[in-house]
Structures are given as C-alpha cells and as structure tokens.
C-alpha cells in the first residue's frame, strides 16, 4: 500500500515533520494545567448560564415548577418531624432535636447530591462533549453551582425551622457563610473526582447508594455525634469525627444552634475550622488536578 509509508514525495519530509513545521498539534491533546485553568476562567459565562438553565429546566415537567425548590426541603423536614417528633417522640437527649436533625440532613444532602450527580457529570453530557471543545471541568463546576442554588433555598427553610423551634439569633449565625463556602469547595473537588471515575466505571452508579448510606450513618446526621465517643473505641471515634461531611455538619450546628453547643458538638471550633479548611483545600485542588489529568479521555469510547 502506497499510502502508509509515503509522506510528501516531493520534499521528502514525513507527515509528522510536515505537521510540526506548520505548528499542528496532536488532536485532543491535554493543555498544561495553567493554560487549562485560564481557559476554564474564560468559560465562566458558560458555567453560570448553563447552571441557571439547568435550575430552570429541572422542574419544567411539574405543575408547581420552581416552588419545588422550597417544597422539597420543607417536605423533607415535615417527614422527619413526623417520624422523630411525633411517632418515635424521642429526642435522644438532644434539646431541639428537630432543628439538630434538619441541619444535619440539609448539609448532608448537599454533599450527597454532589457525589451522586458528579458520577453523571460527564456521562450525562456526552452530546455536548462530543460536539464542542471546551474545558470539561466546566461541567462538574456547573453541577456544583446548581446544587449551591438549591442549598440556598434549603438554608432559608432551615433558618425558618431553627427560629420556629425557639433558637435565638446570635452572631455565630454569620459563620454559616464561610462554612458553606468551604463545603462548596470540597464539593467541587468531590464532584470532579466522581465525574472522572464515573466516566470510566459505568457501574459506579449502582454502588454509590450503598457508599452514601454508610456515609450517612458515619456522619451523625440522625443522632447526636457524641454517640460515637460513647459507643466506639477512641481511634474509631476520632476517625469518624474527622470525616468531612460530619465536620461541615458540626460547623453548621455550631453556627446555627445555640442549644447544641457545646454539649452536642464533638470537636472544638478550632479543630472544626482547621479540618474544614484542610478538606476543602485537599479536595478542591486534588480533585481539579485529578480531573485535568483525565481531560483527553472524556467523551471517548
């Protein structure tokens, strides 16, 4: 076959040399990290527009539409009130258990949905990926932006519940803002990690519910965190108390619930903030680098 070895019969250069001479690059090559970050920043308008569009379309098939953004967390809280406040009617020694529980549930849901929807951040957008070239990291970031908007809604509901159950407004309430920002950074990193793994391992989606259920029980959402210290050996309790979701839940409870601090927060505020920053930086940076290293693989296969 003539077409395999021959390059440019006239000048005697190979095709690779010809490509190099004219500055052609290998198709689908991954740009260096700094250039990639710059490109990503240039796509900020795309990310905000895409997340707004996703929020707008997420309830487009329902009659009540956007109202569900508030109704979903409210219904959630109502169910927990019914089970733990009326039926079981035990507060597990936590004063204001309903508010304690709802804070845990809402904060946990934020990271849970990051992990769940992260797995489909790439696989759910294959059409877009295969048609257009843009930094793929824009997709997991968009997922987090959508969830952040939903989180803000549930925070409004939570504030209502907390006040309604008789908690005072203190200056500590201001701390909820940095706590949520740190959790969001952690979530972006987690979403990127899940997106890369999920793009390769299509079975991950089937396994995630089990992992998340375990994580739920290990995060002190449904009971007092102090329970770990009472029931588990010291090293296990310490390990569980360093678990990122538990750290962010404790921070939110520390900020919003005057009745829970200090009796029902296992760690000191200093330890909580240190851990929260550490987890955010480690996952934010680590997740981004991990995702970037897989850039040329997305959309293939």
């Amino acid at each position: 076959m003539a077409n395999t070895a021959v390059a440019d019969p006239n000048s005697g250069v190979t095709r690779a040399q010809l490509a190099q001479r004219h500055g052609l690059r290998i198709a689908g090559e991954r740009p260096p990290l700094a250039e990639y970050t710059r490109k990503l920043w240039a796509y900020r308008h795309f990310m905000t527009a895409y997340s707004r569009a996703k929020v707008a379309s997420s309830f487009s098939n329902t009659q009540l539409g956007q109202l569900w953004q508030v109704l979903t967390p409210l219904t959630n809280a109502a169910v927990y009130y019914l089970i733990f406040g009326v039926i079981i009617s035990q507060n597990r020694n936590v004063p204001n258990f309903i508010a304690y529980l709802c804070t845990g549930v809402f904060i946990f849901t934020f990271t849970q949905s990051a992990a769940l929807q992260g797995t489909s951040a790439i696989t759910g957008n294959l059409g877009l990926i295969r048609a257009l070239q843009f930094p793929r990291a824009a997709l997991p970031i968009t997922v987090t932006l959508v969830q952040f908007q939903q989180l803000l809604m549930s925070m409004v509901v939570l504030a209502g519940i907390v006040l309604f159950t008789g908690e005072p407004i203190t200056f500590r309430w201001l701390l909820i803002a940095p706590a949520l920002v740190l959790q969001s950074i952690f979530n972006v990193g987690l979403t990127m990690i899940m997106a890369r793994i999920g793009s390769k391992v299509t079975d991950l989606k089937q396994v995630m519910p089990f992992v998340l259920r375990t994580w739920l029980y290990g995060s002190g959402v449904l009971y007092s965190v102090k329970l770990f210290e009472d029931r588990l050996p010291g090293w296990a309790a310490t390990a569980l108390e360093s678990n990122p979701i538990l750290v962010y839940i404790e921070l939110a409870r520390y900020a919003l619930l005057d009745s829970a601090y200090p009796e029902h927060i296992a760690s000191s505020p200093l330890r909580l903030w240190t851990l929260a920053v550490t987890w955010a930086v480690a996952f934010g940076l680590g997740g981004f680098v991990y995702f970037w290293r897989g850039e040329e693989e997305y959309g293939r296969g």
Partner: protein
Amino acid sequence: MADQTQPAGNAAVADAGRVPTVVVDDVHVIYKIHKGATGGTSPVAALKRIVSRTNAPNIREVHAVKGVSFTAYQGEAIGLIGSNGSGKSTLLRAVAGLLPPARGAVYTLGQPSLLGVNAALLNDLSGERNVVLGCLAMGMSPEEVKRLAPEIIEFSGINERGDFASLPMRTYSSGMGARLRFAISSAKKHDVLLIDEALATGDRKFRARSEQRVRELRDSAGTVFLVSHSISSIRDTCERTIWLESGVLRMDGPTDEVCDAYEGQK
C-alpha cells in the same frame, strides 16, 4: 495502487504555498463496543470489577480504521464517502480527538469541531436558550452571543412555522433540531469543521442554505470535512473526496473522479 499516485502528486504540488490543517499519519483506530448486559450486573459484581479493574466480559474490539493517511489544507472542503460501516464516522471522531488512534497520529491546527446528527444540546430548554448556551460553549463572549443569536435562529429557520424558538427542543422534529444545531455550530469560524451527515436531515431549502454556509466557512480559510451518503451534495460542496472502504483508504482525489469511480463500482 494506481489510485494513490495521482492524489499524492496533487497534494505535493499544492503544498507549495498552502498550510496544512489536518495531517492524518497512518492512523489505525480500534474501539471497544459494549455488547449489552449479559449478566453479572449485581452491585457485588460491579464492586468486584471496580476493585479488580477488569473490564466487563461483554466487550468486543473493532478495528474500524486501518492505516489511513492524508493531508488536508486550508480552504479545502473534503467529502468522505463509502458504504455503511466503512469507518467514515470513526475517522472523523479520531480527527476531532475523541477516539485515540491505536497506531499513527492525527495532527490538527486548532481544535476541530465535530457536528453530528446526535450532538444533542439540552432537550428540556428552549431553542433560544440552546443557542445562547451553544455559543458560550464554543467560547464566544456574552456580547457576541447577544449579537449573533437572532441571526442563528433566523438561519435555522425554526421560526418559519410559528414561534418555535421559545419552545423546549424536545418538541422539535428531528429535522428542526438538526437545523438548529447546524446553525449554532456554523455561527463560529472554525479552523476545522467536521460534519457527519448533519445536512441530510434538513429539507431542500435548508440544504441549499447550509451548503452555501459550508462554502463560506471554506472560503474563510477553514477546512470542512463532510460525511454523506448523498453523492450529489458532496459533488455540490466538495472539490476533493476521500473514499473509504472497510477502514482502508480506497481513493483520494478530485470529487468528480472519485465519485464517478464510486458510483461506477456500484
């Protein structure tokens, strides 16, 4: 092969002042197909596969492109023809950087954009919003998008039968969807645009308009690849044609010669 000498000579002569945009160097593409679930899909089995890093047992390898080489230059429109399953679409995806070649290499100038029939945007969103998002995703600035959006909707012709631009894309007919997608993708100047059967879905009027658009893109120093089963639309838009058969480059040369040979063979 006798077919080979003529186009190779052609390319070498033309190379004298022209800039290559796509260099395909002895490319082989082998990809994996999932044959679908054949059991072993329980969570336990899934976990086991993740831990042991093995592939599911139901994967088969297909050698779709076997040692294809060619060079495309600025301002060329190149048609790709061949029977079904001859590797045309696979080759385009390799040029777009979406399928890694198993051997050989593809070099491109800038980032090629692939426009296929199933390049779905967001079906739950209105056509207008899809236009905005698509343009932003191609790297346009918000001001540019604002300026171009009406033109894009106008070009796609989706508003010819009432106000469809404000309806969700899932309510569009397949032809309308394809027209809108083509209108969005072709709104930007691409160094290399790969079109995979996307023009086939439109009606005659739209086809004429899109062929005009392809010519404009080509004239603005881009390179356009067109995969189509419609030989007439290739004759209308492309001056060079590559004929693939079972993953092997069968012929590469002026459209009329290659198309005549292709039709003569049938």
